[in-house]
């Protein structure tokens, strides 16, 4: 596609359930990023994939959060045993090169944990 796509656009889940959020980056982009945007907050960096290198997981808030990127393309962010404080918009971005290059953002997935 022409841009970064994310699915689902909205996800409502019950506390304690696991959720998977998907990101399809722009074809050919080597870097992929996940951010969390809570109401009234800025963008909180979660994880960064660059090519075949080990991902930078320094932003993941707890071990309930994990992400993988298969084949250097599609990425899935998994949140296990969701908590109400996980409610936020999860944004994915990709860039042709790594950090320092322009990031192209997807529309986000709005997660609501009841």
């Amino acid at each position, binding site marked *: 596609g022409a841009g970064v796509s994310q699915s689902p656009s909205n996800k409502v889940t019950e506390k304690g359930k696991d959720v998977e959020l998907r990101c399809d980056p722009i074809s050919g982009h080597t870097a992929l990023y996940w*951010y969390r945007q809570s109401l009234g907050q*800025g963008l909180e960096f979660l994880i960064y994939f660059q090519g075949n290198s080990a991902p930078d997981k320094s932003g993941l808030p707890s071990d309930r959060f994990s992400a993988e990127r298969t084949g250097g393309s599609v990425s899935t962010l998994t949140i296990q045993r969701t908590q109400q404080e996980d409610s936020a918009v999860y944004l994915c*971005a990709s860039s042709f090169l790594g950090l320092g290059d322009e990031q192209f953002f997807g529309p986000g997935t709005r997660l609501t944990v009841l």
Partner: protein
Amino acid sequence: AQSVTQPDIHITVSEGASLELRCNYSYGATPYLFWYVQSPGQGLQLLLKYFSGDTLVQGIKGFEAEFKRSQSSFNLRKPSVHWSDAAEYFCAVGEGNDMRFGAGTRLTVKP
């Protein structure tokens, strides 16, 4: 520790007035800097970026930003605001493999 600060959470300006959004950072001497805009219901879009060279950077939609090393600032400006500029604006600063976004400034434009 590295940080990016956008001191103004919310700014209101009248249509046609000038605009300046502040961004301060604590990084080394050679950061790379960005401004992104998030319009209601839309994804973030790059307005402009600075890596090196001329410290006054021109971006899209009539925006510009000036890198002032001595003040550790990268303020965004526009001489005449349009109603369509109402949005959330994010400054991002990085060095090497460390990049962070500010908390954002919400711009409201009065008719």
